[in-house]
């Protein structure tokens, strides 16, 4: 019976593409290394987790057709505050960074949602502000997070369970959020703002909410980093400014908003993390890592349109679309 045969092409779910890409890269790593220990799994997940959190924050904002360049520096500030305070005042050390993240998201969201300013330039300004704040809070890397936090969050060095569970929890929590009324409204406004407004979505509120959730997730990402490294650093988040956007895009989310899945974004973070080990085990200089990342990014967003272009190149005259726009 034809219909009984299992056909993977029919199994479609959001985030399937990035999941397959990640699975492929993982298989290559396993083949090169001829094995994959619990320690490897643990470090992969724990290294990917902060990026996954910050990228999920970016994802929520991108869903509403926004973008946020300040998430990385927000993570720096929150991680630094946690590393400085949590040893002496556990409650302050945990609640403080979360409140900072919420406030930072609010500060990003208000000019965008209320004044209609372009998000890229607003968050460019707040990026600079939070980078400065991080340097004021903690001029040099330092601080301390008790080892108990690390054990509770990431497990022992060869104990992969908590790391994997963390990523699954992020997926489920973000997936659940997209199904709430807020998530539905957010996807609606990302798909078509004018229609969403006419359907009764309070566009400004929802946009503001997206930036606040983004700030919160960036704060959690910064705290995860602080716990995993037992310290803080004023510049640790800077590398996430653009990688968080890359992870979202590799995760199959268009920057034009409205579509995408949490699973895809977490896979995007895992893909960007595993390329490092891939090169290491393939015995290739780590200099090539950013080339690979760039090529993966282009391959993910450009493969289909490249085929279209090659097919069209003989007989064309297409109607110009409004592509070529930054936001």
């Amino acid at each position, binding site marked *: 019976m034809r219909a009984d045969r299992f056909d993977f092409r029919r199994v479609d779910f959001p985030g399937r593409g990035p999941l397959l890409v990640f699975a492929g890269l993982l298989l290559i790593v396993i083949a090169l290394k001829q094995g994959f220990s619990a320690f490897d799994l643990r470090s992969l997940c724990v290294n990917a987790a902060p990026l996954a959190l910050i990228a999920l924050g970016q994802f929520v904002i991108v869903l509403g057709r926004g973008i946020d360049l300040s998430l990385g520096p927000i993570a720096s500030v929150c991680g630094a505050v946690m590393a400085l305070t949590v040893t002496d005042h556990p409650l302050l050390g945990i609640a403080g960074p979360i409140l900072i993240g919420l406030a930072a998201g609010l500060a990003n969201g208000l000019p965008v949602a209320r004044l209609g300013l*372009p998000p890229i330039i607003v968050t460019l300004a707040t990026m*600079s*502000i939070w*980078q400065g704040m991080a340097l004021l809070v903690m001029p040099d890397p330092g601080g301390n997070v008790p080892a108990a936090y690390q054990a509770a969050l990431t497990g022992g060095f060869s104990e992969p369970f908590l790391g994997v569970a963390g990523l699954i929890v992020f997926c489920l929590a973000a997936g659940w959020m997209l199904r709430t009324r807020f998530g539905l409204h957010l996807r609606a406004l990302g798909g078509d703002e004018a229609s969403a407004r006419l359907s009764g979505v309070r566009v400004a509120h929802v946009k503001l909410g997206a930036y606040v959730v983004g700030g919160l997730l960036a704060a959690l990402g910064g705290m995860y980093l602080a716990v995993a490294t037992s310290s803080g650093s004023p510049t640790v988040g800077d590398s996430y400014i653009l990688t968080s956007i*890359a992870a979202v895009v590799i995760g199959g989310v268009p920057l034009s908003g409205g579509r995408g899945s949490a699973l895809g974004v977490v896979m995007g973070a895992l893909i960007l993390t595993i390329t490092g080990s891939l090169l290491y085990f393939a015995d290739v200089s780590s*200099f*090539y890592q950013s080339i690979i990342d760039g090529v993966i990014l282009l391959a993910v967003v450009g493969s289909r349109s490249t085929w279209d272009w090659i097919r069209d190149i003989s007989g064309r005259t297409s109607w*110009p679309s409004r592509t070529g*726009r930054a936001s």
Partner: protein
Amino acid sequence: MAVTDRASIVTEPKAPTRRRFPATAPVLLLVLTAILLGVGEIMAPGFASSDNMLQLLKLSSFLGIAAIGQTIVMLTGGIDLSIAWVITGSAAVFTANCDGQDANVPIAAALALGLGLLVGLVNGFGVVKLKISPIVMTLAMNNIMLGATLVYTGGTPSGGSGPLVRALATGNLFGVVPAMVILWCLLAALAIIGVRWTRGGRKLLAVGENPRVSFLTGIDNDRVTIAAYAVSGIGAALTGILFAAFSGATFLGMGDQFVLPTIAAVVLGGTSMFGGRGGYGGTVAAVIFTTLLTTVLVIGSIPQGVRSIVYGFAVLTAIIAQRLLTRRDDLTQ
């Protein structure tokens, strides 16, 4: 009689439409710049002297040249994040091939500028033909150039620029005016005239304003957009060559400090993020303003953290002020 009647109807003046003053942003910035100069003069007497102002202009010129391409790309409604590593990469190519000899300058400069042109063309091709969003396309190219530069230099850029280029980047002409300032003035004039008064510039503004209308007018949108990214690539490469000559050597990451300031300068200068409106004149004012702001904070020995916060608030305040001043105009967009 009837004819004159009809003519009078046709020529009857329409109700005056309120048009905002076209150069709000640059004028606002020049006023702020003057205030900053005053503050600088109070903090360090001699700050507003013509000599020091020329030095400030020289400092601004590198960011200014990098911002030419960013302005042109943003006029199409795009953005170029790849200039960071195009600057570093072309500087590395230039210094390695030049190796401190004037005789090697033409070939080294040609290679570096060719690299910038190539990256620009690839960016434009991806944005236009493959319909990849400009942020993603130029971000990916930036990553690729980062890796390519690391591989090319093996992690340590070598060589140096010829004395001639070094003189251009650091020296003065006629004993007083820095050569960089003159070069910047020439390029700025070229960019302003090119955008405002040439056929290519008109096409650029048309594509940025409304790609469908420009397409129906017979403009080859794709070619215009690709050309814009190509100009940005060449501009970034030129910045890389000059900045490497100015610094004495290429260092990795030297281009990172240019990306976001160029975007901030373009937007502060009144160019719309959505394309079609603005020009390089406003960008020049914004580049001078932001450089002056940083300099005043440095001479006030303000720590870097506070400088960065003040810079962020200045950008934020300026765009909010612009939006509030031009709100009426934007409602009709």
